[in-house]
């Protein structure tokens, strides 16, 4: 997308300061010029942009104020999709499965959704807010063995970890311990902030064998035959994925 800007992360969802909404509205207005579908990779961007579009359709006085401020008018109408939806709906998991060159050796991967992909359910309608399965479905097709663990829809702490790390790191640490307890050897995420938090939480504990955190797209790339170096996967991460592991407490999803 040409002329992209920062979506503002969760700050843009706040209602009492309209300036935070200028950014996402501009993004959507520009996207609309090129077409009516916008694909995001990051859960945070997905959440902000999808909800901004929904609110813009309301034609409220707030929207009018935002349009007056921005040089570009936007009144909703962009279909904001997450890359996972593209993979599932526009390409199809079947096709992806066929294209897999390097099955990922039943790697025990924990899918981490966090909260922004799923909530608020009324607006996101991405997957079941408590028992989502889209990421596990993809991982299964790539040859992984997705591990179900209770904390996979818990919040990582978002940007609050930057300001108050001691208070927020326990959140990501409990996610890691939950995943570990269920037998996951690595976590697949779809948001750079989640990745940062989950890694930082472990770093603060001086964990000597931290649970690797990778993007689901890196796993996709690996399964499709792309070199791990090109995917910027380090040795530890690649090992976690491809080394033959015995799985414990896994749940095979459809």
């Amino acid at each position: 997308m040409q002329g992209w800007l920062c979506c503002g992360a969760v700050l843009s969802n706040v209602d009492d300061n309209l300036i935070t909404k200028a950014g996402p509205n501009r993004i959507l207005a520009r996207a609309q010029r090129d077409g009516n579908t916008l694909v995001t990779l990051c859960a945070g961007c997905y959440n902000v942009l999808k909800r901004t579009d929904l609110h813009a359709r309301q034609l409220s006085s707030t929207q009018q104020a935002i349009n007056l401020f921005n040089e570009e008018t936007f009144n909703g109408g962009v279909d904001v999709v997450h890359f996972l939806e593209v993979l599932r709906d526009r390409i199809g998991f079947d096709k992806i499965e066929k294209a897999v060159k390097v099955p990922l050796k039943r790697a025990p991967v924990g899918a981490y959704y966090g909260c922004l992909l799923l909530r608020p359910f009324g607006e996101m309608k991405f997957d079941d807010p408590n028992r989502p399965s889209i990421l596990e479905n993809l991982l299964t097709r790539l040859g992984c063995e997705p591990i179900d663990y209770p904390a996979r829809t818990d919040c990582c702490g978002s940007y609050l970890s930057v300001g108050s790390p001691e208070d927020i790191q326990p959140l990501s640490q409990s996610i890691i311990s939950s995943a570990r307890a269920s037998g996951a050897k690595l976590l697949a995420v779809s948001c750079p902030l989640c990745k940062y938090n989950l890694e930082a939480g472990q770093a603060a504990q001086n964990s000597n064998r931290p649970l690797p955190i990778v993007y689901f797209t890196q796993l996709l790339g690996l399964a499709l035959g792309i070199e791990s170096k090109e995917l910027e996967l380090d040795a530890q991460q690649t090992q976690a994925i491809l080394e033959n592991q015995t799985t414990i407490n896994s749940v095979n999803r459809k």
Partner: protein
Amino acid sequence: MGVFVCHCGLNIAGMVNVEELVANAGKQTDVVFAVDHKYLCSEPGQTLIKDSIRQQHLDAVVVAACSPAMHETTFKNLTQLAGLNRYNCEVSNIREQNSWVHDSKDQATAKAQRLISQAIEKVKLNEPLQPITVPVTRQVLVIGGGIAGIRAALDVANAGIQVYLVEKSGSIGGRMAQLSETFPTLDCSTCILGPLMAEVYRHPKIKLLRLARVEEVKGYIGNYKVKVRQEPQYVHEAKCNACGECAKVCPAEVPNEFDLGLTWRKAIYTPFAQAVPPAYVLDARNCLGLLPQACGECQEACDKFGTSCIDLDAWPRVHELDVGAIIVTTGYDLYDATKLTEYGFGLFPDVMTSLEFERMLSASGPTNGEIKRPSDGRTPREIVFIQCAGQREPETALPYCSKICCMYTARHAMMFHHKIPDGQAYVFYMDIRAGGKGYEEFVKRCQEEKGLLYLRGRVSKVYEENGKLIVKGVDTLSGKLVQVIADLVILAVGMIPSVETHQLASTIKASLDPNGFFSEAHPKLRPLESPTAGIFLAGAGQAPKDIPETVAQASGAASKTLGLLANPTLEREPTVAQAVGEQCSGCGICIPLCPYGALSLNAQTKTVEVSEALCEGCGTCIASCPSSALTLRNLTDDQLIAMIEATVQ
């Protein structure tokens, strides 16, 4: 006619020149007598009107006074008493909408003049109508055999009126029969319900139709023609002695609905031990086959050891009933807890609904009253109760409160401690609603005596770990996140209207509220009547409530029904629509506009006909008719035009 102008003390006379009104009225054609009085509604005032009618030989009366909403009935009754028809009287509002709202005596008097002229024009064209009398069938239909239906049926039958009690399942008793105890007295539910069920069965004036549903309702208040379809009585109700030999040999086993699937029953079964009627039921859907007959073991066993009461060739039967009133007592079902994905009901066997737990507590239930974990049968030590499960949540589940959960949860927690004294119960709540008599004391007693831990906060997630349930919640009073490692989790799920309510509502033409419960005519002042005349409501089918309220409503509905049937005929307001046949072109525009279905097209004449009994007199059809083929009695278009003309003088 005569015109009577009221001073109403100074309320009218203070802002209106009453003498002028009297003088002007007397000058109008058709007015032979005009007089004023300080308080026309008083005894002397009324006597004045009555005497004037007689002495002055008046044929119509216009009373200019307060709003008709106040005394119209009084003056109309008076007119009737004096020998005229009540529609020979019209009331003109020169107080609430005149003297009280204007501040110029000239303007108020001029307006009062117009208002009186308006009333004169109307009364001139009024027809002397007599109330419409419809006969009343002195029989009553009660739909639903729970405690509400039972109470209502008994009350009506005890007054000597024949009652038909229709119940969709094999036994009356409803939800109350599934309970172990009732709050706040901790009475054994079956013990207090049983005698009432027996009374219903024995009552000479109650005909119980079990395994039956209302299929069709035609007619109107006082005169309903109802078709009730009863499932084939494979087991003869009167002959069966409940020996149970049939069930012993039946090969088909299905989950038992009474125990919410926690136990099994045969395809031929008794709903529960104290079922009324006591006769067994053959569940045709789960029987191995009746057409053609695949098994027949039950019939053989019954012939050999029993009373030979099984007939596998039975047919359904349609009962045609004539009733004057219908009481709807269809009760409730529970919200589908599988939708509450955060709690894991349906996924984790040790997460149960409150009604399932109720069955478990019951001595006649799946575990004979012992509390056991469904997963491994062990005795739970740590139990979590989650109140408001899927309720008070407008965004994702039910928006309303089910009223009884705080109470039964306290009871459940207390019973848990009774049976497992070294256990610990945790109750996650938002509020404690204990408004009934003795309720607050009961909850306090439960909390204090048994050491229950009440945590004010919600549960965000329940998941399984190492055979235990991890319950993640919060205690807002201490501001701390709470995690309980529980053996058993009980969800207090919400009440929803019985699943067949929707279908029944359209069959009987009763309206439902936005949540699917039967709506009442007025939430404050008429909670027991449906807006559809002749249909009364009681119990949880109208809104979530507890047993005392249900019983009170049932008796109330019965009382209203008896009031309806007390007279041999019913009087309806005659100011209804009237069809002027010759002008009707048969276009049918009016027919779908009537909310009461009072209009129909005569197949032979192809003109519209009005059912006087169904018509409520709103006048919408009259306004829609392009041919002026419909008129509203005593508010015809001619009258409206004459009144308007008088208004714009």
